């Protein structure tokens, strides 16, 4: 009797599962695999808003090759394992494009799984749009043909950052604090070697790795930075790990120069406030005060839409120029291929040159890393655009041309199709 119950239940529920399989046709689905819950939910939410924004604009203009773009959000809780579950779900739904950005740990797992899937399922290949995972390995040892990265990798950014630091003689003692995973380790390694080459006189007084997304109070770390006597901090921290670190340092009244990858948004400017003036620096592909009428209009449109009158909570800031580039280039590749098949689009995307308001960018054909101009900028007052209503914005210190960001690659990839 008992076993028969089980069987009936299996049958009944599975039948229901089968009927739930209604799939919509006639759209190009892009699976957005990023954290939508947990410690980094705000980061994933931000990227999703950007994608939604661009997809809606494109769909209003008729879509691509007569099909509309649909963004399918899948929560991965920044876990590599959950990401592969999400990827499997996307594959089962017949989705052929995926995008992800937050955490290189996730990206390494995803890119490996995508490569395996593509090798095992000819004709059902998946194209991976990486918009923010910047572990250099992704376009070097772990590269493959269907992975395209639209953000400069950790080494390229550190190259630009240390070039800038080499001209600043007031830097004597540097403290490195990073998240304990692939990306954080890559930042620390790059900072150590590049500083040694460009500024042998600078002393690295600390090289800390802390757990990813699990530290709630950074005060003990700040005490260590203080005890080490550092005058500058280099950190690749992002999301809450960035804003909490900077908040703890501010509460302790520390006067430090911050050389960061991601201090420009998601609560970090709010957390540090006026204390960050002329002290917080960022390396990025864009910031709001790079002059460009077209981009300024777009930013205004975005922020009007996501901050409707009467909305409470955090101000939704336009943040990723690279996401616009990625969206434009991928859809342009589809249009030029006259097909929404990812393999055909990939052939067009590989080596593609694209015009942006900030100069020409190019998807390197040898490792599928986008070359784009980079900016080193400093938090300052009295600028045209401030950030998170703090009265402070970013001011360009240095612009690095796209071609100057290129680094040698160890990537060997096999073309598909």
């Amino acid at each position, binding site marked *: 009797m008992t076993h028969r119950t089980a069987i009936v239940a299996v049958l009944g529920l599975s039948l229901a599962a089968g009927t739930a399989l209604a799939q919509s046709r006639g759209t190009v689905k892009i699976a957005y695999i990023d954290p939508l819950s947990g410690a980094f939910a*705000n980061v994933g939410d931000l990227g999703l808003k950007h994608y939604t924004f661009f997809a809606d604009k494109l769909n209003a203009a008729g879509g691509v090759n007569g099909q509309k773009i649909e963004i399918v959000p899948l929560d991965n809780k920044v876990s590599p394992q959950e990401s592969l579950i999400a990827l499997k779900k996307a594959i089962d739904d017949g989705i052929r494009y995926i995008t992800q950005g937050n955490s290189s740990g996730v990206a390494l797992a995803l890119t490996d799984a995508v490569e395996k899937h593509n090798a095992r399922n000819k004709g059902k290949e998946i194209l991976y749009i990486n918009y923010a995972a910047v572990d250099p390995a992704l376009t070097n040892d772990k590269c493959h043909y269907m992975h395209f990265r639209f953000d400069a990798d950790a080494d390229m950014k550190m190259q630009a950052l240390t070039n800038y630091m080499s001209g600043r003689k007031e830097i004597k003692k540097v403290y490195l604090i990073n998240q304990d995973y692939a990306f954080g380790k890559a930042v620390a390694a790059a900072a150590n070697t590049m500083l040694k080459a460009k500024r042998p006189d600078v002393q690295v007084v600390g090289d800390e790795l802390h757990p990813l997304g699990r530290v*709630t109070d950074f*005060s003990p770390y700040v*005490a260590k930075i203080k005890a080490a006597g550092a005058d500058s901090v280099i950190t690749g921290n992002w999301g809450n790990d960035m804003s909490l670190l900077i908040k703890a340092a501010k509460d302790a*009244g520390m006067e430090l120069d911050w050389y960061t990858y991601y201090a420009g948004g998601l609560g970090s400017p709010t957390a540090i406030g006026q204390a960050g003036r002329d002290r917080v620096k960022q390396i990025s592909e864009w910031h709001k005060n790079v002059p460009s009428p077209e981009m300024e209009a777009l930013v205004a449109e975005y922020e009007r839409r996501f901050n409707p009158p009467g909305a409470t*909570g955090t101000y939704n800031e336009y943040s990723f120029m690279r996401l616009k580039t990625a969206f434009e280039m991928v859809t342009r590749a589809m249009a030029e291929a006259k097909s929404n098949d990812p393999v055909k689009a990939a052939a067009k995307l590989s080596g593609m040159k694209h015009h942006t308001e900030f100069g020409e960018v190019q998807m390197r054909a040898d490792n599928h890393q986008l070359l784009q101009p980079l900016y080193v900028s400093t938090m300052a007052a009295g600028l045209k655009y401030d950030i998170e209503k703090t009265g402070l914005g970013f001011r360009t210190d240095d612009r690095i041309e796209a071609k100057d960001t290129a680094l040698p690659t160890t990537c060997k990839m096999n073309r598909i199709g």
Partner: protein
Amino acid sequence: MFDLIVLSVFNGLIYGLLLFMLSSGLTLIFSMMGVLNFAHASVYMAGAYFAYSLTPYLGFWGALIAAPFLAGLVGAAVERFGLRHVHGHGHVAELLFTFGLAYLIEEFVHLVWGRNPLDQRPPPLLDFPLFTFAGIDFPAFKVFMIVVALGMFVALWLILTRTRIGLIVQAALTHPHTVGNLGHDVPTVFTLVFATGSALAGLAGVMGGIHLVTNPGMAQALGPIVFVVIVVGGLGSLAGALIASILIGLLQTFAIAVDASLADFLRLFGLQVTRATPGWEVWSITLAQIGPMLPYLLLVLMLMLRPRGLLGSRDS
């Protein structure tokens, strides 16, 4: 070095006292009702969010009173309309009820306040560096937290030892059935204890929401560790909870501050451990990495060697 020790003691103390605010209520609930209340840390989170929403209307000081009160009401309702009905199905059902409740509270927070972290600032009155030590500012708000936590300890202790209701609660801790047989309304005492415990968690939330950051993950960050506190401190013992909280606070803070590994430790005894030594990976683990593990090691050892905890009156 001395500076770092003093700073770490201070940081550890603050973290420990935040833990105490959370665990004082839980230790009463657990020891009286035997319920492993998994939702306790969620009530702490709810307290932080209540304070966030009330501050624009009542100001910080109003929210400091109102948010714990609301949390206490939630606690009373949970006990009266939920837990009491599950009681008959046994401890596993009770525990699972609070387990589900923790889930529900987190989702409710998502529903009402969204998933993004919210920025809460200390009130202007407390938003200044009180004093500076070794070049590091000590915000007045952190000192305020210490005062509130210690004040809470004294007040609870007085209530438990000097008032009639406190004596009944104390008696119920050790002999719940006898107290019932003596004609006291044990169910109402339960509701009261649960509500008070929840209100204390709510108060901790008001503090923690400002000291750390108000986000939907704040319950999970502290959830399991409060169980460590109450077990290590001993069931029903306020003083035990205080000692265990501070112990764990210091343990975790010092683990981060000390850049030493097992290999360094062995070197003190003249044993040379290098990369070539078998098991280098284990020897090279730093104290900072072990930090998150230490409270749980303490928990397991305590349960195996002294199940009544530091100051407990009976076994868990």
